[in-house]
């Protein structure tokens, strides 16, 4: 990981909020958007810059379920398992994706750091059930086959980029 790039980006985020202590959560959200998780060194750096103790920042970062201290893949796939999606068979989609990517309940991110598969309780799009999102783009009325197709398309697109 290139630290200079990291801190340059973090500095931009911090400057936008003027190092205000009350903006901590917003800063953490932006950092997470940038890196898909909250790296320890970045949290320490933010703490020193904002004048907030590292233990306090760790407390905030662990309080909210939405913050992750573990690295996530480039593509975060969220499978909705709210009531509507559940009855519309969201679990087979989850199982198919896990099987395709070699993941399970405890291992949520692929070794190549490409994909992270998570469940969420409701995405608020019950009319489109079952729903998944990939990096916040919504894919309605999913099936296991369609989900796997999406993953394959992403892989292909990345291969072409390289």
């Amino acid at each position, binding site marked *: 990981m290139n630290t200079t790039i990291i801190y340059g980006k973090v500095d931009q985020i911090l400057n936008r909020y003027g190092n205000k202590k009350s903006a901590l959560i917003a800063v953490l959200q932006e950092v997470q958007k940038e890196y898909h998780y909250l790296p320890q060194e970045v949290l320490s750096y933010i703490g020193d810059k904002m004048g*907030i103790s*590292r*233990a306090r*920042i*760790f*407390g905030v970062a662990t309080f909210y379920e939405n913050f992750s201290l573990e690295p996530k893949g480039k593509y975060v796939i969220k499978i909705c398992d709210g009531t509507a999606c559940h009855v519309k068979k969201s679990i087979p989609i989850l199982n198919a994706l896990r099987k395709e990517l070699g993941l399970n309940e405890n291992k949520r991110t692929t070794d190549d750091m490409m994909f992270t598969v998570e469940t969420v309780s409701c995405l608020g799009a019950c009319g489109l059930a079952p729903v998944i999102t990939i990096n916040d783009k919504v894919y309605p009325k999913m099936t296991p086959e369609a989900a796997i197709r999406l993953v394959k398309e992403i892989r292909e697109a990345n291969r072409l980029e390289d």
Partner: protein
Amino acid sequence: MAGTMIIDGQRVGFDKEKNILDVIRKAGIDLPTFCYHSELSIYGACRMCMVEDERGRTMAACSTPPRDGMIVKTNTPKLQKYRRMVLELILSNHDRDCTVCEKNGRCKLQELAARFSIKNIRFGPLCKQLPVDESSASIVRNPNKCIMCGDCVRMCEEVQGIGVLGFAYRGSKIKVTTAFERPIAEVECVNCGQCAAVCPTGALVVKNETSKVWDVLNDKNKRVVAQIAPAVRVALGEEFGLKPGEIVTGKIVAALRKLGFDEIYDTGMAADLTVMEESREFMGKLEKEENLPLFTSCCPAWVKHVEDKYPQLLKNLSTCKSPQQIFGALIKEHYKKIDEAQGKETVVVSVMPCTAKKYEAARPEYRNNGIPDVDVVITTQELALMIKQAGIVFNELEPESLDMPFGLASGAGLIFGVTGGVAEAVIRRCLKEKNPGALKEISFSGVRGMEGIKEAAINIDGREIKVAVVHGLGNASKLISSILAGEKRYDFVEVMACPGGCIGGAGQPIPQSSLVKMQRAKGLYDVDRSSQIKRSEENPIIMALYSGLLSEKRYLLHRYLHHQK
């Protein structure tokens, strides 16, 4: 706001009290609390101080301001049931191995469980056993005994301005821990131990090293030399029911002899050497106008804080070793040849008010060919424990005198134990006028007292020297910010990490209120007033050492930091 309120039918006046808890306690009712400390912010978490008003509403006394005409009851059946429930719930998740707990007998939770007759705990534990963190040289953290009162979190953040500990996770998974749950020895902890001093349970305790002392005392081949820090003599008595500030030096010496120590000396003697060296260093820097202000370096917690947080100020830190380390280095040097001839080994045991001294003694720069200058550090509390273990009736001991030659300290060396003492001792040394009037003037210059940040201006050789004295690392950080911002300029800054200075160290008997600390401070100033030698340079031992052992070995008195190598 002043007024009167009715507490349990009794009319009680209030004036400056910020909350009804203080008013209730003033009325002579010992309302129970875990999370209330007057020097910390109000947290209102433990719910033990609940009171009931005339309409049956309950409120936490710690976070309710008094109102004129307020009527509260502190001991209704509803409150009794409530408090028992709180205790039962806390205890259900608490590692209840009381008899083998370090806090046994001094634990607030144990005390309140007994007071409210908690006999049966109906709920099983929710939490899994977590590992105990023994990484620190000074404190042991056992999360299984934590009751989430947050006292340690607030102490570290509000008073010390560091914030090593914080609450992490939430709901039933909440815990008090360091950033990223690292071992305490690997974070910015300065080992001041103030967290342990306010912890109501055994979650944070000072590392107990008494067994190491027993081991050396029972070893015939060891010469066990004790050094007693100034602040110990005005606090140890509290463990035996004596008044805070009562000077018990003679009894401590008698007790240490009974315990089997071979020689018993005064850390104040080494403090005199610190004064000599620090004054020399200060006058030199003053002349060259370089790296001012000079910061004192006898507080190991402060030194660690500078290393962690203000590395740019390391060059301003005095190179003098702390009195504890000077003493150790000196004794080891003094006995080197004698030990070789007698086939003995000299062991230095420090009795300190301080938990960071344990960490200081273990630092690698204080080893000479692998042999530490100070072998074991025990706190005032640990010494009291040893005295009790040995069955010595402390209060009936006939006072004895310290051994010579290293048992003679000047008044200047002894006031090291209280905030402002080091500055005062150094000023005494630097000042040309040596009459009693000048001494008195220093004591009124502003260095004494319990304010967080004190300032004094002293005229030395026609030059006005600006002195600042701070205690509590939070205050130190405030002062440093103003120095770094160029708002303030000082020549000499004394820093002690603990509120009140060493007399308020975390190794001292607890609880320590500000009143207790003031009484201990008075005790040390009394020792100074009644001592015949007031200045370090007038101590005959110091003079003899400089012309003898130290004549070619002044390096023993200095620590050499990385940037000076």
